[in-house]
């Protein structure tokens, strides 16, 4: 079994590989187009001479793969290693992985502007072609080296795991042997060969992919040895925490730190931009000092924001049809379809703010050099290169002066993408001239939640005399994540369309005339990417409304969808499979009901059925069982896909039934798990998952199924009660309000 090592890569030569006592290091160069740098990048810390290495082979046969993805439990560090190992035909038992240095031009994800980031269930689908081509080039070089050694044509060779074989002469040579004799020789090419995609392995030839493979990160996670950023121990460390502004954007105006400074162990109180830092010799002293602070904050317009009133405004905006918003999809002639419709259906849906509730509270450790222009950072982040570049910008230095040490992430779900901890830790580390471990309290983590935005929706369907859906309108109202998390300019550059908020609002239903629009609201709330991003509510809206349309015509919701998806064979396959598995259409116990949903999320096809019951007195919904069928294309590690999907059901059910951040006077009202409850073991359903791999490029898994859970619940509740549940969460209070109990 492999293991994870840290930061083993040094500076490499300009050539395509490095021959050293460590063995052979393949520093693979990329096509020029992939060198495009993110706009945020500062001066290049990776000069042409300092290229990164994906693969290092030791003479003893050990293979170390540089895997740039953050590991937060989604399993893609193992998955990507499997892809590399498969294509270079490495012996998996000799494979270990390491984090590469911050060199996005080498290790960046092509679908995210070549940044080293891990989000959007995008690691496998983003790196899929890139790493396979790299690995195939490595295999080619190894084979060529053997061919030269044996003086035989390359075409007569093939590979077995970590072995080049010449069948005609019954000879073989291990990758380790080649790494050994290649040292100091000139047998290797000066540049890596370019491999054509058509030469890549086919699904039928896989030895590693498609088989259950234990995740490389798991052994350390059963005995406490896995290291998260919060665990880092650095000599001479001091501890810090912060009291942050209760309203997003506020700044400390008056800081009364007298009581805090009297707490034994507290060293310093440092006013920061939007918070006040307390630095102490121990974390317990820092936390105590924080409680003793008395700070008044500047007033900001968001002070007056109340989410309950805001929701009414959002929904009113959704209904204000003369405000067209920004068009996202304009297909056919929608106005004409509605003008000629025999029947029009209209509904309003909504979703509240939700919090990530990642188990590891936000934290980071940093040390700033004496000149103030260099830093070492210990962090678990989904945004490796953005954090490194942001640190360089803050210290007005170049990225090569920033050493970023990546750790495991105690939950990410989008929360750990931004570089929002650096504006606190870097000034503190600079002020102290000692390494500072900054840990937010859980309460601070909740109060400063960066939430999935609250949204209001209006959906409309035009039906002709035969009940055929001829027109579809969907208006999505909410604050912009792109503008908050990025910049106003970024939203402008995207023509005002927030692709995070709008994610999942497109669908595969064959409706000729469609309009989907974004109507932006601005309230100054911290809104962010949250597992599933826009699909988390947009699929709830679409799948519930499709169910409404089917029911209004007394059509079976599954049959109705199959009709609308007649040109989508992969969608049809997962729908039919899950309907069959769940006994859809057969009578179930009167007190239980099944609800159905289908969606394509992060390019994976998913269908789901949930079995629900309701305690009408308390309004508590109980989910008994979920059935899911998934086609993500090629399945790399089936058990890992099952694990992710189980997690999606539970996370999804949690947000469906329980989760809501409310805001009053601009302030988050919740504090901790006692008033922001998440799903517990006693509330988990049975989960039955059918994987339906197809020979298509591997797509996303980490958040593919989550958006399907809420519509399953809402659609099942409709069957049970005859009432529509159009607001998330479907909390007991809401259930009682809707059912009138």
């Amino acid at each position: 079994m492999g293991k994870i090592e840290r930061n083993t890569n040094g500076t490499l030569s300009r050539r395509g590989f490095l021959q050293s006592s460590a063995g052979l290091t393949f520093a693979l160069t990329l096509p020029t187009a992939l060198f495009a740098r993110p706009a945020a990048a500062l001066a290049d810390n990776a000069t042409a001479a300092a290229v990164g290495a994906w693969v290092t082979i030791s003479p003893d046969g050990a293979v170390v793969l540089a895997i740039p993805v953050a590991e937060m439990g989604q399993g893609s560090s193992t998955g990507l290693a499997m892809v590399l190992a498969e294509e270079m035909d490495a012996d998996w038992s000799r494979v270990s992985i390491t984090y590469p240095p911050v060199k996005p031009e080498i290790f960046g994800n092509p679908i995210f502007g070549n940044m080293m980031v891990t989000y959007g269930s995008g690691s496998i689908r983003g790196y899929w072609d890139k790493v396979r081509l790299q690995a195939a080039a490595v295999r080619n070089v190894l084979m060529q080296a053997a061919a030269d050694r044996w003086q035989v044509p390359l075409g007569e060779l093939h590979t077995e795991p970590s072995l080049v074989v010449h069948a005609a002469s019954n000879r073989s040579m291990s990758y380790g042997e080649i790494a050994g004799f290649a040292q100091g020789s000139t047998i290797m090419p000066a540049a890596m060969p370019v491999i054509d995609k058509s030469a890549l392995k086919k699904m039928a030839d896989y030895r590693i992919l498609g088989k259950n493979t234990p995740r490389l990160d798991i052994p350390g996670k059963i005995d406490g040895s896995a290291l998260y950023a919060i665990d880092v121990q650095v000599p001479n460390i001091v501890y810090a925490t912060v009291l942050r502004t209760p309203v997003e954007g506020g700044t400390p105006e008056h800081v009364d730190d007298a009581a805090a400074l009297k707490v034994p162990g507290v060293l310093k109180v440092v006013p920061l931009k939007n918070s006040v830092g307390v630095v102490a010799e121990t974390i317990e002293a820092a936390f105590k000092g924080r409680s003793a602070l008395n700070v008044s904050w500047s007033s900001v317009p968001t002070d007056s924001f109340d989410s309950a009133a805001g929701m009414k405004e959002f929904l009113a905006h959704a209904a204000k049809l003369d405000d067209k918003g920004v068009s996202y999809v304009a297909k056919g002639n929608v106005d004409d379809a509605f003008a000629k419709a025999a029947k029009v259906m209209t509904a309003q849906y909504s979703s509240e703010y939700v919090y990530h509730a990642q188990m590891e509270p936000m934290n980071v450790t940093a040390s700033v050099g004496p000149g103030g222009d260099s830093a070492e950072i210990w962090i678990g982040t989904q945004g490796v290169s953005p954090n490194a570049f942001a640190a360089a910008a803050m210290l007005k230095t170049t990225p090569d002066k920033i050493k970023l040490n990546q750790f495991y992430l105690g939950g990410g779900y989008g929360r750990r993408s931004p570089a929002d901890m650096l504006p606190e830790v870097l000034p503190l580390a600079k002020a102290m001239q000692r390494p500072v471990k900054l840990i937010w309290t859980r309460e601070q983590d909740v109060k400063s939640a960066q939430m999935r935005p609250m949204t209001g929706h209006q959906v409309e369907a035009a039906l002709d005399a035969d009940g055929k859906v001829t027109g579809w309108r969907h208006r999505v109202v909410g604050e912009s994540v792109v503008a908050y998390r990025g910049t106003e300019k970024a939203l402008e550059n995207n023509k005002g369309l927030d692709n995070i908020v709008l994610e999942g609002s497109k669908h595969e239903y064959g409706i000729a005339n469609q309009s989907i629009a974004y109507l932006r609201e601005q309230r100054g709330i911290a809104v962010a990417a949250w597992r599933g991003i826009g699909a988390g509510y947009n699929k709830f809206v679409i799948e519930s409304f499709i169910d409404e349309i089917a029911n209004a015509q007394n059509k079976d919701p599954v049959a109705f969808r199959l009709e609308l998806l007649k040109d989508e064979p992969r969608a049809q396959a997962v729908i039919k499979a899950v309907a069959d598995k769940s006994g859809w259409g057969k009578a179930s116990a009167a007190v239980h009901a099944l609800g159905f949903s289908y969606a394509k999320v992060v390019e994976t096809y998913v269908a789901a059925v949930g079995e629900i019951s309701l305690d009408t007195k308390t309004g508590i919904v109980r989910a008994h069982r979920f059935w899911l069928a998934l086609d993500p294309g090629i399945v790399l590690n089936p058990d890992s896909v099952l694990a992710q999907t189980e997690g999606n059901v539970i996370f999804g059910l949690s947000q469906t039934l329980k989760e809501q951040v409310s805001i009053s006077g601009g302030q988050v009202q919740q504090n901790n798990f006692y008033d922001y409850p998440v799903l517990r073991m006693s509330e988990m359903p049975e989960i039955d998952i059918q994987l339906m791999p197809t020979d298509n490029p591997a797509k996303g898994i980490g958040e593919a199924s989550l958006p399907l859970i809420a519509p399953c619940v809402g659609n099942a509740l409709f069957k049970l009660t005859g009432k529509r549940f159009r607001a998330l969460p479907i909390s007991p209070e809401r259930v009682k309000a809707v059912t009138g109990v």
Partner: protein
Amino acid sequence: MAITFTVNNKPASVDAGPETPLLWVVREHLKLTGTKYGCGAGMCGACTVHLDGKAVRSCQIPVAMVAGKSVTTIEGLSANSDHPLQKAWLDLQVPQCGYCQSGQIMQAAALLAANKNPSRDDIVRHMDGNICRCGTYPRILRAVERAAKQGA
């Protein structure tokens, strides 16, 4: 004033305020970082350790309370990460992000030490105070059942 107690069968002496949560003593004074900070309010179970064999939330235990007592953390649960629960956790690939798992395993270990043959309901009741945000509950449940069967 130094407070002395036993951690993972070894004597420990720490110089910390008597009210300091055991959690921070274990993590930052003794550098046993397998025990995690989750909520600081006894609501999530990430900080679960054994105090004289019973599962407790170390964030809620002032260190003065453990003077003379025996604390076991995830690092001390077994010599070679081979407690039946750890083996079951590995076999069933339970952890995802993994952050809550030390607490989950310590909570489960206290159950199996007291009840060799827990029913499914026993397990769910006993584990219900431990949050796993990633949603590994189905595998935790199966792993506890498997470990019980194999005689934890």
